[in-house]
């Protein structure tokens, strides 16, 4: 906010005496910059000291913090909430589900009460609600055949956070020139555009930041990638691996496009990007695969519970550092309570209620579900997580392995994410073979 308010637009991504890029310089696309400008103007009216150039760095006041929290809250209410209502209405009107009226309310509650999003946006402080909200609205527009609106909204989402690019393969066919409007100040010269790009893809950071449940981080316990290969080659590995794993689902969607398939491709492409091979992933990106899963909540509610549990668990070290343990417990409890609401979908016996699955697909899915969600398996995993939570809070690791507990947590979460990816790939495979036959 300080930078966008006090410095002319063309200098926002450029290193200068006023704009010291190494002090938390802008590393999101231009829409975030514009949004920061608006919020900065709001803050300036009430607490100008909190965004004054230079002097506000490290400045913290009660009013400043309160106003900033309110900017996130207002963005959430103005963008995310309406988007969620839109998509739930579209989803249910499209007969993608045969549910009761209660289910609409339950579905909305499941998406809005997603504890990961609440804790990250309102506890840790971020603006994921804007890009996720725009993405949701774009998905809804796409599902209701309003392609232009969908592409506009997705471009906006992409320009708010480049993390939304995880959905890009799915939206590939909808990208339009709206992109260029947002980039207007930076398209004046090649140098300016490159400056923005280099801020967005910070390759000077390592292959992973903080402890993240993804492939590189997990396997680095065995194979010290950073020591073996240079950053350049690792970057290429990451890109290649990501694209390769994404390719099958993209091809599938091109050959046999469907609305339901679109949602699953969103899920798969973001899941691959996050958990498997994407370069320079931040732990908060788990929000992205979680998003399409919440949209499919009425069908795959067991998977939702499973993924949410391990997503929360993987964020626990971060939240513990932020002193958000109480909020963590309370929001997770709230999620569980609404999930198991009396009269809600999870209380009923029948699992998948979709019409367009054939008999073999149903059997296949039930087989997978019966293994993956067997009460003993889930109970065991739940118990492990509980024990680890307690250990993490109460005990201190040895000096030799200061990040032992983080590593263990991350290992468990990663294994679950991989299993989850495999499960949905299997579902996809069964579905494709079904369509072909």
């Amino acid at each position, binding site marked *: 906010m300080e930078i966008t308010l006090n410095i002319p637009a063309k200098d926002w991504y450029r290193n200068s005496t006023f704009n010291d890029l190494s002090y938390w310089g802008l590393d999101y696309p231009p829409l975030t910059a514009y949004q920061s400008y608006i919020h900065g103007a709001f803050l300036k009216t009430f607490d100008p000291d909190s965004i004054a150039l230079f002097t506000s760095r490290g400045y913290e006041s009660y*009013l400043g913090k*309160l106003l900033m*929290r*309110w900017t996130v*809250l207002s963005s959430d209410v103005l963008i995310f909430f309406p988007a969620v209502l839109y998509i739930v209405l579209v989803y249910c009107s499209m007969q993608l589900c045969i549910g009761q009226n209660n289910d609409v309310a339950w579905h909305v509650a499941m998406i809005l009460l997603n504890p990961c999003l609440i804790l990250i946006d309102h506890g840790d402080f971020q603006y994921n609600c804007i890009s996720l909200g725009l993405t949701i609205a774009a998905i809804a527009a796409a599902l209701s055949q309003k392609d232009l609106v969908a592409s506009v909204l997705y471009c906006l989402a992409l320009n708010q956070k480049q993390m939304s690019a995880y959905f890009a393969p799915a939206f590939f066919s909808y990208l339009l020139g709206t992109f260029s409007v947002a980039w207007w100040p930076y398209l004046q010269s090649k140098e300016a555009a490159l400056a923005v790009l280099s801020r967005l893809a910070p390759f000077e950071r390592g292959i992973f930041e903080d402890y993240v449940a993804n492939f590189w981080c997990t396997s680095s316990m065995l194979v010290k990638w950073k020591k073996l290969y240079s950053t350049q080659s690792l970057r290429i590995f990451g890109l290649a691996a990501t694209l390769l794993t994404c390719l099958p689902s993209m091809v599938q969607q091109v050959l046999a496009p469907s609305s339901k398939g679109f949602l699953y491709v969103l899920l798969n492409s973001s899941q691959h990007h996050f958990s498997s091979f994407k370069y320079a992933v931040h732990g908060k990106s788990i929000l992205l695969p979680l998003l399409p899963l919440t949209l499919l909540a009425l069908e795959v509610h067991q998977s939702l519970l499973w993924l949410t549990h391990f997503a929360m668990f993987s964020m626990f070290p971060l939240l513990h550092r932020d002193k958000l343990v*109480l*909020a963590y*417990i*309370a*929001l997770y*409890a*709230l999620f569980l*309570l*609404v999930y*198991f*609401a*009396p*009269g809600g979908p999870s209380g009923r016996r029948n699992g998948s209620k979709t019409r367009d699955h054939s008999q073999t697909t149903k059997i296949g899915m039930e087989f997978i579900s019966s293994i993956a969600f067997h009460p003993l398996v889930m109970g065991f995993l739940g118990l492990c997580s509980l024990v680890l939570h307690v250990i993490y809070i109460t005990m201190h690791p040895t000096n030799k392995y200061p990040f032992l507990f983080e590593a263990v947590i991350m290992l468990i979460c990663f294994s679950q994410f991989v299993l989850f990816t495999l499960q949905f790939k299997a579902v996809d495979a069964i579905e494709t073979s079904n369509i072909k036959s």
Partner: protein
Amino acid sequence: MKLQESPRSPASITQLLWFFGIATVVKLLLIPAYYSTDLEVHRHWLAITHSLPLGQWYYDETSEWTLDYPPFFAYFERFLSFFAPLIDPWIVHLHHGLSYKADSSIYFQRISVIVSDLFLQYGVHISTRNLASLKRNLVWVFVIWSPGLLIVDHLHFQYNGFLFGWLLLSISFLAQGRDLMGGFMFAVLLCFKHLFAVAAPVYFVYLLRHYCRGGLVRGFARLSVLGAIVVAVFAAAYGPFVYHGQIQQVIRRMFPFGRGLCHAYWAPNFWVFYIVLDKGIAFLLRKFGFDIPSPVASFTGGLVGDASPFAVLPRITPMTTFIMVLLALSPCLFKTWRYPRPRLIARSVAYAYTCGFLFGWHIHEKASLHISIPLALVAVESLEDSKHYFLLSVVSCYSLFPLIYEAQEYPIKVLLLLLLLHTILMWFCFSALFPKIIGTKGSLQSDKKATQSDSKGISRTAAEKQWFELGWVAKSYLLGVVVVETWGQFLHPYLLGDKLPFLPLMLISMYCAIGISYSWIWQLKRIIILS
């Protein structure tokens, strides 16, 4: 939730626990939020009851927050103070614990309120055992998720939850005809918090007429039994203090004189109108040239000799307010004397608290909870009741807003408590209970035994609308709430800056007082009509 099962089945217990779970999660999230000096007050009482012998509880002056609740509440604090030292011994230290603001202390106290709310659950469960599942769920929503209770107990910090559970139990015993138990529970409640004594006349008259009947001898015998029980309860509470000869000090602490007619923030009761009228007349008379001296005393300070805080109108003393409360209560007492019906007891108790609220001395706005919680039990009985409850609940919740005045709780107050959740929830609930079915009288007389007046009332309104919808007066009043709030929060600082700083609060008081006065008259009418 449209499950149809018998009220005593395990599924209904699960549902009740689900309601409790959701409420608990919200309360947990509110632990780090604003708390008032009442947190320190109760912490100090933990310290007093833990560290000092019984004989010194009501004499201690270590801090300004002296014990001013009856002995059972002191015993309750003593019970809590068994657990406090396990968490952190300094919570109960008499001197070092003063203004102790460590996390351990705050968490301990907040969680103790949350746990004590279990008793509220129990009280609501027993009270609603015999209702149909939809109505039962509605009452649970109104009581367990009551925003007023959340503001007072879990933000401002008090222990009203379990006390209301006790009150609801007492009322439900009376409604079931178990008069002795009901009377006993009420006596116990009085020894927890003497504020509940406003309903004592109603209890007395009702029990006298309903329980002590059947001839002179039998009646007198029953009266003796009742009296013996009440005396026994009071003996258990005050006995030790009588033994130490401290009863005068206890009474003095419980009823501190030297407080003014109004609290610092005027509770929305009748005296607000009286004060404003007084100031208005004084202003007019001065304009016309009369010499009206400005009053020396203030409304919030104590009684200073003969000085009156009123410029023109007669002075009000505690005795005046006492008489006025009794006068307002008399129609209800008269009605109870003539027709002591168990079914009307909840209404009568709520009416008693309404009169006490409107005409009492030094009333806190928190006392509006005493009106809305008992009335929640009868809010689902008929369309008229539900419309009235909707209005009352919004007004009483709004009147509690000034308690939480810090900026960071503002979105919680407005969005979570009042606007989004409570109002919309109530609207959906009542619309579900009274759906838009035109012309069918029968659907409104669900599964309760219809009494004479009920069917009379409904046949009168058969020609009118029978679904849940507010009239234009009610709607404009509720809109006015939004206007008052917008003025107070946004327009006033913008237009008038620092001038007239008391104006927004005064506006809130007056506006809510209108609503509560309407509720008073409506309740009176309802009690007189129903028999």
